[in-house]
C-alpha cells in the first residue's frame, strides 16, 4: 500500500479517537439543550473534573495494589461516573434550578459563573500545572510495511472506540425503552405539557444533567488514560469544541452530536497533519461559524420554530 494512503488512514484513526471523545461530551450539551434550551457552560468543567477524578482513582488503585487492568478500568469508570454525576446534579441544583423561568440570559450567565468557579476550584486545590499519569494500557497493532510508514492502532484507541459505542447503545436504550427515557423525550417535546401530565420535570432535568455528566465522565477517564496529561484548563477548550460538534450535528439530536463529534475530530486531525497544528483550533471554530451561517439547524437537526 502506498505511504500516502497509510498516512491518511492513520489520520482517520486519530481523528475518530478524538471525535469519540468530543461525541461523548457533545451528547451532554445536546441533551440539556434539547430539554431546557440552555447551553450548559459548566459541562466542559465537569469533564475536566472527571479527568482528575479518573486519574486519582487509577493512582489510588495502583497504591492499593490492584493491578489487573480490566478491574482497574472498570472500578475507575464506575467511581468516576458516580462522583461526576454528583457534580452534575449539584450544579443543576445550585445554579440552574432556582432560575427556572427567568429570562434566557440569566441561567446562561449563572452557567458561565459556575464554569469559572469550577475551573478555579480545581486550579486552587490541585494546582495550575500539568499532571501526568503513567500509561496504564500501552501497546497496539501496527499495519503496513516494516520499511515504510506504519499505521499504528493502539489498544487504548480501540478501548475508546468500544467504550463510546457501548455508552451510545446504553444511552439509546435508556432513552427509547425506559420509563424515565420516555419522560425525557416528552419533556424535550413540550415541557409545560409534560408537567401537566404529571411528569416531575425538575427530576427529568436533573436526570438529564446527570446523564450528560456520566458520559462526560467516561470521556474524562478515557482522555486521562489516553493522553496521560491533564490540567485544570482542558475543560474550557474541550467544552467549546464539543459544543461545536453538537451544533454541527444539529443541537437537540443525539445521533447528530455523535456525527458532529466524529466529523470535528477528523477535521481537526487532518488540519494538524496537512496544514498546521497551531491553527487546528481556528479551523474548528471557523467550522462553527460556517455551519451557523449556512445550516443553522445542523446536519440532523430540526428547524427551530419560533412560538409567541
Amino acid at each position: 500500500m502506498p505511504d500516502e494512503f497509510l498516512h491518511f488512514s492513520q489520520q482517520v484513526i486519530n481523528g475518530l479517537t478524538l471525535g469519540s471523545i468530543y461525541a461523548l461530551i457533545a451528547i451532554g450539551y445536546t441533551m440539556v439543550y434539547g430539554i431546557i434550551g440552555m447551553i450548559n457552560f459548566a459541562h466542559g468543567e465537569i469533564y475536566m473534573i472527571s479527568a482528575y477524578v479518573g486519574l486519582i482513582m487509577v493512582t489510588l488503585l495502583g497504591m492499593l495494589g490492584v493491578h489487573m487492568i480490566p478491574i482497574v478500568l472498570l472500578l475507575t469508570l464506575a467511581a468516576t461516573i458516580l462522583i461526576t454525576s454528583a457534580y452534575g446534579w449539584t450544579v443543576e441544583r445550585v445554579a440552574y434550578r432556582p432560575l427556572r423561568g427567568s429570562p434566557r440570559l440569566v441561567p446562561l450567565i449563572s452557567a458561565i459563573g459556575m464554569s469559572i468557579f469550577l475551573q478555579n476550584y480545581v486550579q486552587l486545590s490541585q494546582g495550575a500545572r500539568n499532571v501526568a499519569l503513567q500509561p496504564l494500557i500501552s501497546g497496539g497493532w501496527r499495519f503496513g510495511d516494516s520499511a515504510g510508514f506504519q499505521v499504528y492502532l493502539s489498544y487504548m484507541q480501540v478501548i475508546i472506540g468500544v467504550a463510546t459505542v457501548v455508552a451510545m447503545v446504553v444511552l439509546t436504550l435508556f432513552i427509547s425503552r425506559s420509563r424515565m427515557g420516555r419522560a425525557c423525550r416528552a419533556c424535550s417535546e413540550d415541557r409545560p405539557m409534560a408537567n401537566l401530565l404529571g411528569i416531575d420535570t425538575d427530576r427529568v432535568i436533573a436526570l438529564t444533567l446527570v446523564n450528560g455528566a456520566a458520559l462526560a465522565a467516561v470521556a474524562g477517564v478515557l482522555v486521562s488514560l489516553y493522553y496521560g496529561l491533564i490540567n485544570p484548563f482542558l475543560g474550557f477548550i474541550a467544552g467549546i469544541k464539543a459544543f461545536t460538534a453538537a451544533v454541527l450535528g444539529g443541537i437537540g439530536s443525539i445521533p447528530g452530536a455523535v456525527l458532529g463529534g466524529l466529523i470535528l475530530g477528523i477535521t481537526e486531525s487532518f488540519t494538524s497533519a496537512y496544514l498546521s497544528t497551531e491553527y487546528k483550533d481556528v479551523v474548528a471554530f471557523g467550522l462553527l461559524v460556517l455551519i451557523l451561517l449556512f445550516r443553522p439547524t445542523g446536519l440532523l437537526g430540526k428547524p427551530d420554530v419560533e412560538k409567541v
Partner: protein
Amino acid sequence: MATRLKEAGIAAALMLVLAVPILGINIVIDGPSTHLEGEPLPVVIAVFAVFLVRLFHGPIAMALGRVKVPTLLPTPERMESYRPAILTVLIAVALIWPFTASRGAVDIATLALIYVMLGLGLNIVVGFAGLLDLGYVAFYAVGAYSYALLTEYFGLSFWTCLPISAAMAGLFGCVLGFPVLRLRGDYLAIVTLGFGEIIRLVLNNWDSLTNGPNGIGDIPKPTLFGLEFSRQPEMEGGTTFHEFFGLDYSGGDKVVFLYLLATVLVIFTLYIINRLIRMPVGRAWEALREDEIAARSLGLNPTTIKLSAFTIGASFAGFAGCFFAARQGFIDPKSFEFIESAIVLAIVVLGGMGSQVGVILAAIALTVLPEVARQFEDYRMLIFGLVMVLMMIWRPQGLLPARRLRQELPT
C-alpha cells in the same frame, strides 16, 4: 427541625462525595512516580460549612429577603434638578484628585477607568440589547493591536489611531455579527467565545505580523498636542511637556496625564452612550431585548438593530484597547484571554445590566478591591464565578438596577 437536620445531613454527605477527590486528595508527582496524599482539613471545613448553610437556609433566606439593598441614588424626580451639579462635582473631583494622590494609586485608577470603558461598551451589547457577548476581549485586542501595528509600521500617532482602532474593532464586530445575529441568542454567546479564541490564536501564531507570543513593545505614549511626556524628545525636533512649560522633569506627570486622558475618554464614552440610548436606535435595543416578537411586529428590523448594538459595543472596546496599548507600551496575546471577557461581563452583571452608574461602580470595585486585597489574589476568579451565580439567583437585575426611562400618562 428534624426534616431540616435530615436535609442538612444529606447536603453534607453530598458535599463529602464532591470534596473528597478534588479538595481532599493531592496528586504528588516526584520523579517518574505519582502518588496521592490526603488533605482532610479543607474537606472538613467544606462539609461543615455546607451543613450549617443548609441547616439555617430558611432563616438566612428570610434575613436576606428583608435586607433592602440601599438605593444609592435619590429618586429620579428629585434627582433631575441636582443632576448637573452632581455631575460637575464628580468630574471636578475626578480631575483634581490625581494631583493629591500617590503615583501608584493614580496608576490603578487609570486601569479602573479602562475597565469602566470596557464595562460601558459591553453594557450596550449585554445590558441594553440583551445579546450575550463572551468574546468582548477580541475587540479590545483588535483595538490594541491596531494601534500597536499602525504605529510600528506606519508611524501613526495615538490621536490618529484612536478613531481608527475604534473603527477597526467596529468593523470586526459588524463582520462577525452579521451572520450570527440572525440566529438565536445563545448561539451568539458561543460564537463570540470561539471568535475571541480565534483572534488570540491568530495573534499568537502570526509571527511575521504580530511578533507572536513575544508581543509588541515600544508603543509610543500619547502626546498632548504634540508635547511628549518623556525626559528627552523621542521624535526628531520634538518638544517635551516639561521643556515647553519650563518645569522640572517628573515621571509622575506622565501617569497623571494618562489618568486625565482616560477620564476624558470615559466622559466622552458616557456622553455618546447617553445620547445613543435616548435616540430611536437605543429605544429599539431595549424593545428588542424585552420582546423580540413584539418589536418585530412593530416594524423594527431585529438584525440591523442588533448589529448596530454589537458594532457600537465593539468599537468602544477598540477605543479602550487603543488606550490600553498606549498606557502599557507593550502588548502580547496573553492580555487578551477569555478571563478578561469574563471579568468585563462580571462587571456588567454585578453593576446591573443596563445601569451605567452601576457598571461604573462595579468596574471600580472589581479593579480596586483585588489591588487592595492582594493576599486573596488567587481566589479572585473563584469569587467572581461564585458572585456571578449568586447574583443571578438573588439579584439578577444587579446591585444598582437600571431605571427604565418612562413616561406616565396623565390621568
